[in-house]
């Protein structure tokens, strides 16, 4: 039922926004939107992976990625071999994520989810402040060798970097799905996400499992930072706050379902891009991801009733 509604809604939106426009133009904006949407999805997936394992909605993912890609850029400027700079980006993101996960997150483990989320926002601002102090506002560009080659899809040239971002978002969803479903650590992560107290009682090594989750999240954040730096622009504040539409993508998956995060992110990118075709609606492009996320939430909670203690009742 949900899938049918989704397909009908998307066809309606694409038809409405593209009405009277040549097919080639619609194709260009569609593919362009998919490219941006895959970045939203990538950011959202990184957040949901961590949230499922630790209950922490990490607003610092963007800042961690920004710090990583700025280090990669700096090393590139100093003549360091390309692959080593990319590895450095991932490493910096990993260290930052693990540092927070080991040193700060455990101290907030028993606090409310909102407190945990706001703490990561503080961490994001600290990272952004340091990065902005080290690298002042200045025109910069970060490129990967894969930018040089591309394929034409519906008239739009899509670089291999964009294909990697798109492929990675799907690959990570599939990989995490199997990791959580088929491995011992995945099982323990799911147990932790369900009930931290109970998991501790039955002997699950909480700190170890959470450290692995923070590590995975850090690696995804580093990779996302590389992609954002290359495909969006190399501005730390822009990359840091790319986490906002990523949250909207994560919300589409209700912070749980990675496949829905992927589809939500891609759909947001496509709709946002196609809104450009409407002289009236193009002004609302920046809020499109959040409107979509709100509508998705309303759709999924139809027929349920929210109570004051936050539990849904059928």
């Amino acid at each position, binding site marked *: 039922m949900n899938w049918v509604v989704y397909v009908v809604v998307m066809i309606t939106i694409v038809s409405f926004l593209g009405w009277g426009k040549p097919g080639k*133009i619609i194709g*260009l*904006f569609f593919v*362009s*939107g998919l*490219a*941006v949407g895959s*970045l939203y999805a990538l950011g959202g997936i990184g957040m949901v992976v961590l949230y499922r394992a630790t209950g922490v909605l990490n607003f610092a993912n963007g800042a961690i990625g920004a710090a990583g890609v700025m280090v990669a850029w*700096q090393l590139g*400027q100093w003549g360091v071999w390309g692959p080593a700079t990319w590895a450095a980006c991932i490493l910096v993101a990993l260290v930052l994520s693990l540092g927070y996960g080991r040193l700060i997150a455990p101290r907030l483990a028993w606090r409310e989810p909102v407190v945990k989320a706001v703490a990561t926002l503080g961490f994001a601002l600290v990272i*952004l402040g340091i990065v*902005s102090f*080290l*690298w*002042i*506002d*200045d*025109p*910069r*560009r970060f*490129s990967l060798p894969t*930018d040089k080659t*591309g394929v034409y899809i519906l008239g*739009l*040239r899509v*670089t291999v970097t964009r294909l990697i971002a798109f492929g990675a978002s799907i690959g990570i969803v599939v990989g995490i799905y199997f990791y959580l479903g088929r491995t011992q650590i995945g099982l323990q992560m799911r147990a932790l996400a369900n009930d931290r107290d109970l998991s501790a009682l039955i002997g699950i090594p909480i700190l170890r499992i959470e450290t692995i989750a923070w590590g995975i999240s850090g690696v995804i954040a580093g990779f996302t930072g590389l992609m*954002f730096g290359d495909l*969006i*622009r*190399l*501005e*730390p*504040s*822009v990359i840091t*706050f*790319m986490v906002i*539409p990523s949250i909207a993508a994560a919300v589409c998956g209700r912070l749980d379902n990675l496949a829905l995060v992927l589809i939500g992110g891609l759909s947001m*990118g496509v709709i*946002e*891009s196609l809104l*450009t*075709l409407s002289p009236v609606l*193009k*002004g609302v*492009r*920046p809020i499109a991801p959040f409107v979509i996320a709100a509508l998705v939430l309303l759709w999924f909670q139809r027929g349920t009733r929210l109570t004051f203690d936050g539990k849904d009742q059928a």
Partner: protein
Amino acid sequence: MKLNLKLVSMAAAASFALAGQAMAAPSCGANTGEAATGEPIIVGGIYGKAPPGDFSASTDAAKAYFDCVNENGGINGRPIDYRVENDQWNPEMAAQAASKLVKDAGAVALVANGSFIEMAVNAKTYKEENIMSMAAACAISECFESSNIVSTNQGPLPSNLGAAQFAQEELGSKNVACIGFNIPNNGPWSCQVVIDFMQSRGGDGSMQLLNPGAPDVNSALLEAISTGADTILMNLPAGLAIAVLKAAEEQDLRDSYVWIAPTPLYDLSVPAALGEYWNGKVYVNTELAPFQLGGPDAKNWIEVMDAYARPEDPRDTFAQSGYLSATYFVKTLLMMDPKDVGDRAKVTEAIKNISGYTSDLMCGPYYVGDTDFHMPNHAGYMVQIVDGGFKIVRDCYEFDSAYFEPHIAVEKSLGLR
């Protein structure tokens, strides 16, 4: 860190560009060689500095010049007490900064202000308090269409126009797509004049407006292309303009369009950031003299910066305009009766009477006048990004637009034409 290394290297590059200059002491104010010790004259400055932009170059350069003036006799023996405030792109802080400087500190004038926010917030205050702001880094309409603000920089409107005019006259452009910010007093204001100009010359134009925080510049580029434009004008800060060019590079659009930009792309870091692909393909309007020209004022600017600014302070267009505003301000005070230089009303009157100041940093004369609009700088240069640097492709030329008719009328009344 990269920041310091880069700015030091930029400073070195700018100094090198002015090759042949003697390492003489800079010329500042009365040039007495003796420090001013009298009662300070309070002067204010407001800049915006917070992610994602830093407009402090103008006040940094003005401070350097004022420090130099203070070591060279000041204003008839009185030093300038230059107090600067950061509005952090926050309207509330911009209003507080103006209140602190104008009402609490009693500044006689504001010099070298640089902000996206400050002028829109404070234009009314300046008028009510009868204080002049000799700004230097303006980007919004209020800065050029207010009674008490006058800037040495052009802002996006004339610079866009200059770039479009060059493209129309020299590169055969017939249809210009102007990609700008969706901020009414910036993007639409400065793009519309380009559309009007192109239509007045039998061509056409359009504007594609981006939200400042929008991550996706690709849509704006595709929208520009879908209008049938033959020329893309990137009316954006350098970082975003580079993102547009990168998106265009992805689509291999370089040879299908003419690529032009206003001054923000005139930054020594830009050619390297763009890379070999764009070599010779991007044309940029510069609102002040290109660095390599090295006239007397340009040399003095570098000497002042080297002697009095911090090594990490940028040597860029906003630094040029900040220096220029400061020199014009000092020149005006030095011509006043010494007993009046601490009197705001007299200083305001003197600033409004400025007419016919010239500098090799600026194509036309600088004047103020008692009007509700000020845009003395509406002529410039065009440069082309070539071999990792900028090559001048058109010397000083005046921009052609009906927008400047009131300004030209004022210039005629002042005998400047």
